[in-house]
């Protein structure tokens, strides 16, 4: 097996906070990411799914070292990003880039479109001004923007176009891995498809590997090769797409799938609703973190946190009760 | 909560300490020599030297700083170079007029600015709004003393409603006392009220655009309960913040107003002390003002709890 493009091992991020008078209540921590491991194979897309606040964006930031991990390693082509500092890190970042969720906030409003896309090239001294300008034009072509829009500012673009700019910027350095954090959730429904198609085209043409973060199972079903489901800072299930959508094993994954509205008014489901809501990441339940909402929870779940098991090849689940699932 | 208050109070100490050090070095940097000032016009060099010795002015600067801090810690602010009275008693003598004047001003300002600001926000864009904002800009653009003189001409010399100057102590009756401070308070309030009205308006504008205000309307509430019951409390935090921050501007304005209206308060004491190089008095007063500012802002911070349950201490 080829080494994965990106691999994350036992990644942990805790945000400590003080409790009580003068912090005498001791140190508490928000367990934003709590021992996450996964791998993104070359040229493929790993989709990371989960509810709001489960730690998806934190993982993205950890991978790009925008925040310091509490523990764990991030291997990019076998090199550990998590241990790098300063210039080494900066050089390594050329190979991994990011597409952000908010197409409004992720573009500096004071820079023109060409400046935004050309910025990474300047930072790494790629070629002459002339060469860079040509490269920017090429990138514009690549993401479907017109050359005459080079000198416009972000506010003069629509949401979809802005996201194209963000993608062009991420591509400027020819990265091998792109982390896309909910790249279409802020877009109009009618524009989503354009961006999803663009991402698919780029992957095909450039051999990119994607870590695709989303909370929309519909989108995930379309883009992913592999699906990883996160709950409260931990991954509860990983499976190839086909397998996941046909035979998800973890009760939480099943609930997620079940909650997706049926696209056909003629076939409305009677569904088994999950009770309650996601507990706070600063006060995790003992044992299995899903047990407070799990229809199958038993005493065992309160005591022992289930480890991930490979129930069929490539399908990992962390649950005590898969047999009954 | 108690812990929070305690922490906040402790946190004011470094700020005051910084002010103290700042004031100390500021005065150390001055070209004049207090000993010469104390010695007077006919003093000989020996006499000056004796005074220097007596005041410890010839000791190393750090040592002076520490001994000054030592005395500060005991509540000793030193003695006025000129009147030979303890700074604390000078302050005690002068505190009443300033206190009454500032409180009067704050009350007056809030009484005017709050309704005006709310109204301006509610009727944003209307002539009322324009008038309130125009008044506010005018308040910012006119020097305090100009307003003071105008008021004296119209209301004291012309209509003879109020005295032209001076302060009637509270002991001689609240009414007379307030009457003597009415013009100064209006003078000061104009600036302060302008500040408050603007912030009230801005803060209300922001709040009125919030979803929950729309919710309140959708419940069928009339405008007034929406404004007062739902919006104002949400708008309160920036407003009280400005009440607190504005205290510094207010105390600054007090210096000028007390001069124009000849009110024997702390403001004039400060201005005089600065002009005369009465260093112990200057140091004591600046520390006092800083402490007032810090304490007021501490109270303001604590008052956030009253307005916003999200602020947990």
């Amino acid at each position, binding site marked *: 097996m080829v080494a994965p493009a990106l691999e994350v091992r036992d990644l942990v991020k805790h945000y400590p906070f003080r409790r009580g008078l003068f912090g005498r209540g001791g140190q508490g921590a928000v367990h934003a990411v709590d021992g996450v491991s996964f791998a993104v194979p070359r040229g493929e897309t790993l989709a990371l799914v989960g509810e709001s606040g489960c730690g998806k964006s934190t993982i993205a930031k950890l991978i790009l070292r925008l925040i310091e991990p509490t523990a764990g390693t991030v291997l990019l082509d076998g090199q550990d990003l998590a241990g790098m500092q300063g210039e080494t890190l900066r050089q390594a970042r050329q190979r991994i880039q990011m597409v952000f969720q908010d197409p409004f906030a992720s573009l500096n409003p004071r820079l023109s479109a060409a400046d935004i896309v050309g910025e990474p090239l300047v930072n790494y001294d790629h070629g002459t001004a002339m060469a860079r300008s040509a490269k920017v034009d090429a990138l514009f072509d690549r993401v479907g923007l017109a050359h005459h829009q080079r000198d416009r500012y972000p506010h003069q673009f629509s949401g979809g176009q802005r996201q194209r700019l963000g993608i062009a910027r991420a591509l400027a350095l020819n990265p091998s891995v792109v982390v896309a954090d909910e790249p279409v959730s802020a877009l109009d429904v009618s524009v989503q498809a354009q961006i999803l198609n663009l991402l698919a085209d780029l992957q095909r043409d450039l051999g990119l590997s994607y870590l695709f973060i989303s909370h929309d199972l519909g989108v995930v079903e379309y883009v992913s090769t592999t699906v990883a489901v996160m709950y409260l800072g931990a991954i509860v299930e990983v499976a190839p797409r086909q397998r996941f959508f046909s035979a998800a094993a973890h009760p939480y994954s099943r609930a997620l799938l079940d909650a997706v509205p049926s696209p056909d008014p003629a076939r409305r489901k009677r569904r088994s609703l999950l009770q309650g809501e996601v507990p706070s990441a600063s006060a995790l339940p003992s044992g299995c973190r899903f047990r407070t909402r799990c229809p199958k929870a038993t005493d065992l779940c309160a005591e022992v946190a289930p480890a991930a098991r490979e129930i069929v090849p490539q399908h990992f689940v962390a649950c005590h009760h898969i047999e009954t699932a | 909560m108690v812990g929070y208050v305690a922490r906040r109070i402790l946190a004011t100490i470094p700020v005051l300490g910084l002010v103290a050090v700042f004031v100390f070095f500021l005065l150390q940097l001055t070209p004049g020599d207090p000993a010469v000032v104390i010695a007077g*016009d006919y003093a000989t060099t020996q006499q000056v030297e004796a005074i220097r010795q007596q005041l410890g002015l010839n000791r190393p600067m750090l040592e002076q700083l520490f001994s000054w801090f030592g005395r500060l810690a005991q509540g000793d602010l030193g003695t006025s170079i*000129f009147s030979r009275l303890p700074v604390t008693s000078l302050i005690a003598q002068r505190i009443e007029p300033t206190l009454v004047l500032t409180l009067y001003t704050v009350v007056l300002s809030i009484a005017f600015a709050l309704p005006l600001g709310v109204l301006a926000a509610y009727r944003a864009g209307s002539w009322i709004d324009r008038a309130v904002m125009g008044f506010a800009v005018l308040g910012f653009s006119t020097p305090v003393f100009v307003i003071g003189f105008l008021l004296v001409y119209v209301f*004291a010399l012309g209509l003879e409603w109020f005295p032209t100057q*001076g302060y009637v102590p509270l002991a001689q009756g609240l009414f007379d006392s307030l009457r003597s401070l009415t013009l100064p308070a209006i003078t000061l309030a104009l600036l302060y009220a302008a500040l408050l009205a603007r912030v009230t308006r801005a803060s209300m504008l922001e709040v009125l655009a919030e979803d929950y205000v729309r919710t309140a309307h959708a419940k069928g509430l009339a405008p007034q309960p929406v404004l007062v019951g739902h919006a104002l409390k949400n708008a309160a935090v920036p407003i009280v913040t400005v009440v607190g921050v504005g205290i510094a501007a207010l105390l600054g304005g007090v210096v000028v107003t007390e001069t124009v209206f000849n009110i024997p308060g702390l403001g004039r004491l400060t201005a005089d002390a600065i002009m005369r190089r009465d260093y112990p008095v200057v140091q004591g007063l600046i520390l006092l003002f800083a402490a007032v500012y810090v304490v007021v802002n501490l109270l303001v911070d604590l008052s956030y709890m009253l307005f916003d349950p999200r602020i947990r201490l």
Partner: protein
Amino acid sequence: QSNVLRIRPFGDLKGIDPVTNSDYMARNHGYMIYDTLFAMDDKLQIKPQMLEKYDTSADGLTWTFTLRDGLVFHDKQPVTSADVVASLKRWGQRDGLGQQLFANTASLEAVDAKTTKLVLKQKWGLVLDALGKPSSGVPFIMPERIAKLPATESLTDPVGSGPFIMKKDEWVPGSKVVYVKNPDYKPRSDAPSGMAGAKQANVDRVEWLYMPDAQTALNALQAGEIDIFEEVPPDMLTLLSKNRKVKVAPQDSLGVQVVFRMNSIQPPFNNPKIREAIRYMVDQNVFMRAYVDIPALYKDCPSFYMCSSPYYTDAGWVKQDLAKARQLVKESGYDGTPVVVLHGTEAGITNTFSSVAEQLMRDIGLKVDPQAMDWGTLTARRTSKKPTSEGGWSLFISAPTGADMMDPLGHLGLRSNCDSSWFGWPCDEQIEKMRSEFAVTPDLAKRQDIAKALQLRANEVVPYVPLGQLHLVRGVSTSLTDIPRAAIPVYWNIKKAN
């Protein structure tokens, strides 16, 4: 309802010790609470005040002073000769004339409770002038226990035997001084005249309400909130003349002399040629008219002495001649060292006169560097003897009271005893010799000769240049009567109609 006299004094009482504080407010405060052995009447004669009588021995060396009966301090203790001795000794350490007196004194002793004896080493003509000195450095009599304080330390207990008692607990420095009538005061029986004669507190209470801003004070006077407004800026007078409830009157009988005081020990004014040029530069009228437009209030007085002084002379005085002044500057070898003017910014005499002076100096080819400062800074800065480049100065303008500019001996501006003279430190042996001679010359005509000679000498060395003589004016409520006409503004004898 008590009878209260409310006064806006010209300045603020900064300290209550009239011996250690040389300023005029401390002096005026002194006259409120203390009494003096002698006082000057309206003919400028020195008359006994606390004294029943005094005698001089035939050789003029032994003086005997006898106190009046019934004099008591505010603390009810009788005034004794021991108090007199202690008070004079303390005063003698600080006051210039006092120092000269004690330099000539062999002994000063209490003979009995009422009698004090002064024995001189040699004949000295100015004993009465010294003890009856009306202005700064007044020999006030205070209790011995207080007067024993070293002259370098300021007293804190305002006990005297004068017609008023200070309420120290009501003193708000910078704002308010309160005096009440001294019920035990025994006035003399002779009619009041100048500072002399009977003193009587006719009001229950006197309040000095200091208002730094003249406009505020003017408003207060117009609104009847104060009874007396000292040193009304002359330009406000026309307004007051329209008010029927207010009258204006000279503040004292002598007025002030405005002085152009040069620093004689630093360039450029250490050059006598340049100082001489200033003489030709000055036209008192130009200065005066920039400040006052009521001719009655100022006087072009071509003399170092006040025009009302018996020593007045215009000997050697020159007329303004800018061309000549310019030429003198050129001849002086002036190297362009700027004239650093300590320019007092408080509105008033100093400010206006400085402005005019700066313009004229520029006209005659001097470089001028006006440095603006408040009076407090000015008084501190003028003590510096350093070169102008190191924080020193060249010129300030001041307006001492006429009483300090009357005769060669007490003259503030003519004293030329180098380091001991007034700021500017003129140094001239001849002048000093003439002043000593003057001190021991009893005969008026001879003294006048000496004064004239001194003026001629001063014209050569130019310790300072007088810019004219002004009357300070006070605005007074018409409800007040019996206001003393004296060399110093004093507040006894005034009656206030209710």
